């Protein structure tokens, strides 16, 4: 069955609902983890599924089911974050470039510290280096909440900028900056790893 058939059947068919959960749980978990961290992300996603179950009849198909489910998850995660008083302003501290990248250029805008020649410079060789992959996961985990959320939604979930704006609640230009800074930070860490062998 495709999504529309599953959604139609789900209120009266547990098996159809289970298929939706199996299909989209992980996408929602990525978003919840990005916003609120690992410890209660699963709880947030389960709460989101409960909301979805109760409001399936309100789904009008104006966006894809995936976008709708992710939006509900993001709202639940932000609600929990506010409840736990960990929240920061979503519009805070957004600058154009990752600060550590700025140090790599001289006053004329040319490279003063150009990229290292990477020992592993193919997708396969990078992916096969477990230490590097651990380093990337560690770096992603250390991105600030806004950057991690924007990066996850764009590069992991493949959402459009408009969809990300609606979920995070910031302007398109700020979403672009958040994504760019997150990617540059990851680039910096991989470059450093290639140069020193350390994360």
């Amino acid at each position, binding site marked *: 069955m495709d999504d529309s058939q599953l959604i139609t059947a789900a209120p009266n068919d547990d098996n159809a609902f289970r298929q939706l959960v199996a299909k989209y749980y992980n996408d929602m978990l990525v978003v919840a*983890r990005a916003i609120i961290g690992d410890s209660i992300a699963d709880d947030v*996603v389960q709460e989101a599924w409960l909301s979805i179950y109760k409001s399936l009849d309100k789904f009008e198909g104006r966006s894809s089911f995936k976008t709708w489910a992710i939006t509900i998850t993001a709202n639940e995660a932000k609600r929990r974050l506010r409840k736990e008083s960990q929240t920061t302003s979503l519009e805070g501290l957004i600058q154009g470039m990752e600060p550590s990248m700025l140090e790599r*250029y001289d006053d004329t805008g040319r490279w003063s510290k150009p*990229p290292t020649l990477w020992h592993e410079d193919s997708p396969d060789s990078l992916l096969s280096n477990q230490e590097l992959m651990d380093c990337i996961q560690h770096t*992603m985990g250390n991105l600030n909440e806004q950057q991690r959320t924007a990066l996850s939604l764009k*590069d992991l979930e493949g959402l459009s900028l408009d969809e990300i704006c609606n979920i995070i609640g910031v302007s398109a230009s700020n979403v672009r900056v958040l994504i760019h800074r997150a*990617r540059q930070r990851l680039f910096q860490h991989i470059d450093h790893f290639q140069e020193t062998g350390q994360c």
Partner: protein
Amino acid sequence: MLKCKEVSELSSDYVDRRLPWRQRAGIVWHIFLCVHCRRYIRYFRLTIFVSKKAATPPPDHVVDSVMDRIAKDTSDNPPD
């Protein structure tokens, strides 16, 4: 001609193909001439690729826990 720093600032929009043609052409010309920026853009694309693959793997048995949660909520709060 664009400076190396400007290429870096625009690199996400460049690889995501969100730049107007004139800026895109400016970057293409710059990286044709500049070995450091050519390397940077190549590695920047690799960064995006491997970051997608480094995402934390999902848990195995999650569907049952969601269904249990819904069943519990339904029994605790039966519909009118």
